[in-house]
């Protein structure tokens, strides 16, 4: 293991929740995908072990390509591989695939709808490596690109399912991934992963909390805390942030007074914005509170520390819900 990988492993797993699933879930899924589908290529930019792409490299070397520390070129090359008939899965940290190589993603992936899968790691505040490595605007950037699909899985099962689903669909996909120490999500009904379909994790009558990625399990915790305060909150897992399941979102909002969106991302341009757009365009006039990084850059630190400091916690979701209730109450009186 190299030092970067150690840093990511140690500090990412000492997170808000105890590591439940261990092992290279993503890396193993990628190998399985590569063995099933001879068109799949694995591209990496000097972050092969840190993205678990080393398993593919070692087992399917003829379809592995390292492009070094040069993401712009790697994205362009991925476009060329896709145009030739391959399905390149491109690995790096999210910041480098989205913020650094934005023009290349726009012109060689999104515009021509090349069959490129961007597998970005270290979402939001999940790394000690500081602002340079913290993807707080990646969803906003990718959402703004026509033709782009954005998936952020919430647990290990979904991590696997999202990779296979992304490979199955023809077109650009941005996978916002965290190495699999995600808390497994317990649902009332068995879950089925389908791109573009929201999932009801838990039902509730008063509020609905829309969440993606790591925030889903925190939203479930928040719903339990809210229950104690007499607020019945539903939790919805929005694993596909784009295209947003507008029908699902608006149908949940229609029957509930309070709407919360929680994301490990800036409150600008991500899930919270997408939910606000859907709610406003549907003319629902609901009170929405966004939980996320509040238009600031963070700092290097452990995930637990950063999540607490920057308001990504079950308590922060509870507070947002109570704020929403106050605002909704005032609205009624007025």
């Amino acid at each position, binding site marked *: 293991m190299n030092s970067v990988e150690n840093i990511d492993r140690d500090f990412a797993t000492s997170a808000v929740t105890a590591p439940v699933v261990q092992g290279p879930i993503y890396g193993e899924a990628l190998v399985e995908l590569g063995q099933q589908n001879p068109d799949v*290529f694995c591209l990496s930019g000097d972050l092969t072990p840190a993205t678990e792409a080393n398993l593919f490299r070692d087992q399917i070397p*003829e*379809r592995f*390509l390292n*492009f*070094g520390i*040069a993401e*712009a*070129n*790697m*994205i*362009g*090359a*991925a*476009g*060329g*591989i*896709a*145009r*030739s*008939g*391959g399905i*390149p899965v491109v690995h790096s940290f999210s910041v480098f695939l989205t913020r650094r190589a934005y*023009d*290349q993603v726009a*012109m*060689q992936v999104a*515009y*021509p709808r090349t069959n490129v899968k961007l597998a970005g790691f270290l979402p939001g505040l999940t790394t000690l490596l500081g602002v340079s490595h913290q993807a707080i605007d990646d969803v906003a950037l990718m959402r703004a690109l026509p033709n782009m699909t954005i998936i952020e899985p919430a647990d290990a099962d979904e991590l696997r399912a999202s990779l296979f689903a992304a490979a199955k669909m023809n077109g650009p996909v941005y996978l916002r991934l965290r190495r699999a120490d995600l808390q497994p999500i317990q649902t009332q009904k068995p879950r089925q992963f389908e791109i573009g379909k929201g999932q009801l994790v838990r039902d509730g009558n008063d509020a609905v909390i829309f969440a993606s990625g790591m925030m889903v399990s925190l939203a479930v915790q928040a719903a339990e805390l809210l229950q104690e305060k007499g607020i019945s909150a539903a939790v919805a897992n929005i694993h596909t942030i784009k295209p947003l399941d507008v029908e699902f979102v608006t149908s949940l909002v229609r029957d509930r007074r309070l709407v919360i969106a929680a994301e490990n991302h800036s409150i600008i341009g991500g899930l919270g914005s997408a939910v606000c757009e859907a709610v406003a365009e549907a003319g629902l006039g609901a009170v929405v509170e966004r939980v996320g990084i509040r238009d600031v850059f963070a700092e290097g630190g452990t995930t637990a520390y950063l999540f607490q400091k920057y308001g990504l916690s079950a308590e922060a979701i509870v507070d947002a819900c109570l704020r929403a209730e106050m605002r909704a109450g005032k609205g009624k009186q007025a």
Partner: protein
Amino acid sequence: MSSAGRLHNVADIQRYARDIRLEVVRMIALQGQGYVAQGLGAADLFAAIYFAEMRLDPADPSWQGRDRFFLSTAHNSAAFHATLAVRGLIERSALETYCKDGSTLEINVSERLGPLVESTSGSLGQGMSVAVGTAVYAKRRGLSHRCYVMLGDGEMQEGQVWEAAMSAANYKLDNLCVVVDLNHMQVEGHTDNAMKMAPVADKWRAFGWSVLEIDGHSIPEILGAFEAARSVKDKPAVIIARTVPGKGVSAIEGQLSHFMRMSPELAESALRELA
């Protein structure tokens, strides 16, 4: 012409180059201004690439075995579209729609035109990377088609060009051939005014490329360079082609004008001179 056929008759290719120049002038004249100087400057290279060097099938532009051409300087669109028309890959009449609203012949070449455009490269520095991906895919799959890139000299100021150059040498892409249109011209005039890039050939050599320097208006030299590039093994090849903007039209030859006005009088005299 058969899909694999290559023209070797210098006079024929020179005639096609002249046809391309005539179309470039007509297209730009309709607009009143445009990328005419670089179009005239690169006409000989385009003619050699499309009539002599590349394997393609006009009846089946998506033919899997075709050689791939990447126009990284996507604004050199008059010359590119003119070449396609002269080669019979698009209708000549389509050239009249160039830059018109709704036309697929955009001023920065777009893949809206169809499979003849291998990537959309208006944002400079990107074409080579797509070509690297295409070439490395062909290598890994044992496919025999070759990849060609037309690169601007000003474009070499983009860092991505050198990322791509490094990776092409790393992967020993001897199926990749880059043509640098060395016309010393960019938006602000002479390339040296914006960024000194000499020594150009040494830079490519240092990146592990096989380098050929030629007169970009000599059809025999161009054909010879392509032939030499094809015989290079285990490394990519770059042909550094010295060209003169406005070549063939004495009134503007050598003028460093990136986006040039073309009056009806200038167009008329240019057409007379070229014919």
